[in-house]
């Protein structure tokens, strides 16, 4: 038998080409739309729609809300998960499957079901919670982030020797908080960042819960523009893509560099 360099199979060409066409055309069409003038019949190309976006007060307002909401969600999630997973790895390894199960539940509960439950449960809660995105939406988004946070951080903690680090830190006289913030956290930084970028991508694109709970976040604004003005919506959509891409690519870059792995499964349908 003679060894030869394997050549690419013809069927592989066909499949990959079809996939490429399917995936690229909608992106191309969006770009094409975003460069059209808002009147029929004018030829390509204009940056008018991008100007519209940049000068739109509602755009800045809603994107600020969504971004701050993402930050709040990330902070709450990290505060909730980092000490818990640390503690579980250090002292309660038997509890790990329980936490893993609870972190997976949000995958099984569709957001549309979750928001129905949340609205019913917290109907009548104080206005600072029920009536503001910083209360109601943030707590819901933390739940959406559960699977990503857990699997990313859990992988991060498994890659380090929690016991030795803790022992070393404590024998030098550090308190628990010092150990956690100055010893453990720097060691799981890549995992924490990966989880944070995923959470950012999810929160910046989440529509279901915000729509049913009637909060004006960026995706709600995007839908409003979709319904009312087609061409600026193209520019806005590309921008929204860019945010997701930036978040996901940062995540992949971190993963490549530091060996952190994040669960990459969707939540913003």
């Amino acid at each position: 038998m003679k060894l030869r360099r394997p050549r690419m199979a013809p069927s592989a060409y066909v499949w990959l080409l079809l996939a490429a066409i399917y995936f690229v055309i909608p992106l191309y069409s969006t770009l094409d739309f975003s460069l059209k003038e808002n009147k029929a019949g004018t030829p390509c190309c204009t940056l008018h729609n991008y100007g519209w976006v940049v000068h739109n007060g509602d755009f800045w307002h809603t994107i600020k809300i969504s971004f701050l909401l993402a930050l709040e969600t990330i902070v709450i999630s990290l505060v909730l998960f980092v000490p818990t997973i640390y503690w579980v790895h250090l002292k309660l390894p038997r509890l790990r499957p329980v936490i893993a199960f609870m972190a997976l539940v949000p995958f099984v509960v569709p957001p549309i079901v979750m928001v129905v439950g949340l609205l019913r449960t917290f109907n009548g809660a104080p206005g600072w919670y029920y009536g503001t995105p910083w209360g109601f939406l943030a707590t819901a988004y933390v739940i959406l982030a559960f699977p990503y946070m857990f699997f990313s951080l859990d992988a991060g903690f498994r890659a380090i020797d929690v016991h030795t680090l803790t022992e070393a830190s404590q024998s030098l006289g550090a308190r628990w908080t010092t150990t956690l913030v100055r010893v453990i956290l720097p060691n799981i930084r890549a995992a924490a960042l990966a989880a944070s970028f995923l959470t950012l991508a999810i929160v910046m694109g989440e529509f279901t819960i915000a729509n049913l709970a009637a909060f004006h976040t960026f995706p709600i604004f995007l839908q409003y523009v979709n319904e009312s003005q087609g061409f600026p919506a193209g520019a806005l959509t590309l921008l929204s893509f860019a945010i997701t891409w930036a978040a996901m690519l940062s995540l992949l870059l971190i993963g490549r560099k530091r060996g952190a792995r994040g669960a990459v499964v969707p939540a913003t349908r």
Partner: protein
Amino acid sequence: MADEGRRVGIATQAAPRALRPDLASGRRRLPLAWLATLPFFAYTIAFLFVPAASVMIGAFQDKANHGTFSNIRLLFHHPYIDAYWGSIRISLITAVAGAVLGMFIAYAAIRGGTPRWIRSVLTTFSGVAANFGGIPLAFAWIATLGPLGVVTTWFRNAGWDITYQTPHFQISSERGIELAYMYFQLPLMILVIAPAIDGLKREWREAAANLGAKQWQFWRYVGIPVLMPSFLGAFILLFGNAFAAYATAYSLDNGINIVPILIGDYYTGNVLDNPHIAQALAFGMFVVLAVMMVIYIPLQRRAARWAK
């Protein structure tokens, strides 16, 4: 409680005692260590389990919060039952198509002969595409196949007017929504199935060839049985993914009769009536997902039996 001293590893053996002076000083091995996980459990119960339970309870109550089956009974009538069929139909079609086509694409990218960069481009892209759904995705499809869409215009110039001649091919039709869903179903399948395809070892193929197996025989007796458990698992994931989808469908056609849209209508004000019906609809979604799991688990067990 777990005795960490039993954990293997030189470094870890000394650790628990050093960290737990209470171990040395006496037998006070109180379950205090659990307390540190209390915030996590409290949060999960308050914002996940209580709301989920509240949906289930609300589904069986009337407007005065008395127990009743009337909401559940209503689910079996028009338009609710049709919404369930619509949701199940879209989820099944996109899950089957996504799983099968996604597997072919993943296999084409991974198999020997395909340059490695193609694989990394495909998985990177899938990681991103699986995460952009919802409103932006819907708009991208409207720009493609909507009444003014780029591809629609190409077709119109070629003499085929999708909007008028074949309305069931419009992006706001059920077929159109399925086409749009594939944009996140395919990448998800590619991400999930790629490790399983990696597990198909080259040597098996060579061994089969040496024993005289033809291509189809390799797939029939080796390839497909090996991939089956992962394939079924991915299929369930895709089904649930499409079943839960709300934003994409809402943006493409907020009149389509699927369960998430019906639930949404109760809250966004298009239908103002009994909120318990929305809770019953949500409860029904749980039931459908649970039924899928009940079908899936024995299938999965059967498919994975040989692997032991």
